C-alpha cells in the first residue's frame, strides 16, 4: 500500500513538471512568433537606414533611379504600383461582385454552385509564376495587337497587361469574402422586402448590397493589399522600365517587381539599401491597407 502511494506521488510530480514545461513551451513559442515578426520589421528598418539617411523623404518624390550615379528615387515604382493595382481592381470589380451575388444569393447550393465555386477556388490556387508565364506567352501578343490598332508603341508588356493578370488573380480572393458577407444577410429582412412585392433584383440592390456593403468594401480593400504585393506575375509582363510611365500602355515597374529584378544584381551598399527601403515601404503600405480592410470587417460586419 505504502509503495503504491509513493509510486503515485512520483507520477504526480512527473506530471506536474511536464505540465509546467508544456505551458512554458506554449508561451515560449508564442513569444518566439512575436519576436520573429518584430525582427522582420526591425531588420528592414536597419538595412534601409543608409538610403533613408541619404535621401530622406525625397526618396518618395524623386523620379530618377540610377544605380550608376547612386541616385535613387522610388516615384516611378510608386506610380507603377498604384496604377497597376487600381486598374486591376476596377477590371475585377464587376466580375467579383457578380460572382459573389451568384454564389451568395442566386445559387447557394446545388451542382451549379459547387461547380462555379470549385472553379473559382482552383483559379485562386494557381501559382503566380504560372499566371506570369501564361500572361507572357498568351496575353502579351494579344495586347500587342491591341496596341498596334491603337497606334501606340507595341511593346505588349505594359501596365495594362499586368493589370489584367492581376485582376484575374484577385477575383477569387474578393469573391470568397463577398460571398461570405452576402450569405450572412439575414433571411428575415430579405423576406420582408419580398413580402412588400419587391423583385429579386430590387432585394439585391436595396437590401442585400447595402447590408453587406461594408464586408464587400473590406473585401475589395483586402484584395487591393494582395495586388500591391504581387510579384512574379507582374514582373514577367510589366516590361521592367525604370522611368515614369506616361500612360497605361507603357512599360513600367512596380515596387515588388523592381526588387525581384534588381536585388541580386545590386552592387554597392546604397543600391541594396534603396531596394530594402522599397521593401520596407511595401511592408508598411500593405500593412496599412490590410489593417483598414480587417478593421472595417470587424467593426461593421454583424455576425450572427
Amino acid at each position, binding site marked *: 500500500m505504502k509503495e503504491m502511494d509513493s509510486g503515485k506521488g512520483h507520477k504526480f510530480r512527473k*506530471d506536474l513538471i*511536464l505540465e509546467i514545461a*508544456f*505551458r512554458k*513551451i*506554449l*508561451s515560449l513559442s*508564442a*513569444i*518566439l*512568433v*512575436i519576436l*520573429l*515578426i518584430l525582427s*522582420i520589421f526591425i*531588420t*528592414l528598418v536597419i538595412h534601409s537606414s543608409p538610403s533613408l539617411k541619404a535621401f530622406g523623404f525625397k526618396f518618395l518624390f524623386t523620379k530618377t533611379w540610377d544605380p550608376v550615379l547612386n541616385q535613387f528615387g522610388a516615384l516611378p515604382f510608386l506610380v507603377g504600383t498604384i496604377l497597376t493595382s487600381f486598374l486591376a481592381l476596377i477590371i475585377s470589380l464587376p*466580375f*467579383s461582385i*457578380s*460572382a459573389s451575388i*451568384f*454564389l451568395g444569393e*442566386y445559387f447557394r447550393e446545388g451542382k451549379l454552385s459547387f461547380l*462555379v465555386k470549385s*472553379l473559382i477556388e*482552383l*483559379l485562386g*490556387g*494557381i*501559382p*503566380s*509564376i*504560372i499566371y506570369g*508565364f*501564361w500572361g507572357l*506567352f498568351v496575353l502579351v501578343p494579344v495586347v500587342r495587337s491591341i496596341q498596334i490598332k491603337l497606334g501606340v508603341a507595341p511593346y505588349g508588356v505594359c501596365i495594362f497587361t499586368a493589370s489584367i493578370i492581376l485582376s*484575374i488573380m484577385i*477575383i477569387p480572393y474578393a469573391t470568397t469574402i463577398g460571398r461570405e458577407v452576402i450569405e450572412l444577410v439575414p433571411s428575415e429582412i430579405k423576406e420582408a422586402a419580398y413580402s412588400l412585392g419587391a*423583385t*429579386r*433584383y*430590387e432585394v*439585391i440592390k436595396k437590401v442585400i448590397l447595402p447590408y453587406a456593403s461594408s464586408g464587400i468594401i473590406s473585401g475589395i480593400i483586402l484584395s487591393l493589399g494582395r495586388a*500591391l*504585393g*504581387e*510579384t*512574379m506575375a507582374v514582373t*514577367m509582363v510589366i516590361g521592367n522600365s525604370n522611368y515614369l510611365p506616361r500612360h497605361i500602355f507603357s512599360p513600367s515597374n512596380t515596387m*515588388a517587381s523592381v526588387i*525581384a529584378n534588381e*536585388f*541580386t544584381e545590386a552592387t554597392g551598399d546604397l543600391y541594396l539599401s534603396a531596394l530594402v527601403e522599397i521593401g520596407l515601404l*511595401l*511592408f508598411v503600405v*500593405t*500593412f496599412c491597407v*490590410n*489593417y483598414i480592410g480587417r478593421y472595417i470587417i470587424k467593426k461593421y460586419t454583424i455576425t450572427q
Partner: protein
Amino acid sequence: MRDEIYKRLLKDKLFKTVVIFLSFISTVPLFFILFHLIKNGLSSLNIEFLFNLPKPIGEEGGGIANAIVGTFILILISSFLSIPLGISAGIFMAENRNSKLYKIINLLVEILQGVPSIVLGIVAYLWVVKPMKHFSALSGGIALAIMMLPVIIKSTEETINLIPESLKEASLALGVPYYKTILFVILPSGLSGILTGILIGISRIAGETAPLLFTAFGNPYMNLNIFKPVESLPHLIYNYAKSPFSEWHQKAWAASFVLILMVFTLNILSKWVIRKWKVRF
C-alpha cells in the same frame, strides 16, 4: 401600372442574366490557362522529363529532376521549421484568449499574413545569405517557413476553438493532466483541421517564386545539401520562360503543368481531409 410591373420584371431578368454571364466569364481564364498548359506542356512531358537532369541548350532531352527534388527539399525545410512552432503558438492562442499576449500575437500574425512574399525574401537574404555569403536552400526554406507560419497558426487556433469546452472539461474532470488533455484529447479531435491548414500552407509555398530569387537562387545540378543553392520548380519556370530559346519555353510549359498538378492535388487533398476526417460535435 402593368407596364411598370413588366419593366421591373424585365429588369430583374436582365440583372440575373448579367450576373450569371459575368460569373461564368470569371471562370473562363482557368480554362484558357489549363488549355494552354495541356496543349503546350503535355507533349514534352514523359518519364524521362521527370527523372533526368537539365541538359545544355542544343542537346536533346533533359528534364527537371533537380527542380522537383529541390522543391521537396524546400517544402521539407519550411515544414520542419514552421509546423511545430505554428501548432504550439496556435494552441497558445486558442487557450489564452484573454491574455495581453494574445492581442499582440493576433495582430502580428494578421500583419504577417499580408506581408508580400518578396519582402520575406529580402529578410531571409539579410538574415541568412548575407552572413553566410552564399545562397542556400536553407535561406529559401526560412523565407517559405515564415510564409507558411500564419496559415498554420490560424488554422490550429480556429480548429481548437471549434472543439467544445465540455470535451476538455470531461478530460480534466477525470484527472487527466492539462498537457495530456491537449496532446491526447484536443489535438487528435482537431487533427483534420490542423492537417488541412498544413496542406493549404504547403500548397501556398509550393508555387512561390519571389522569395526564392535571392535565397535558394536556383541550380542547374542536383543538390541535396541544404547549405548550397537549390533549384525549385517555380524558379525553373521563371528562368526558362525568360530565356530566348523555344526548347526551354517548351520545358517551362511542361514544368508548369507538373507544378499545377502538384498544387491542385494538394488543394483537393485538403478538401478531402476536411470531408473525410471532420469530427463533428
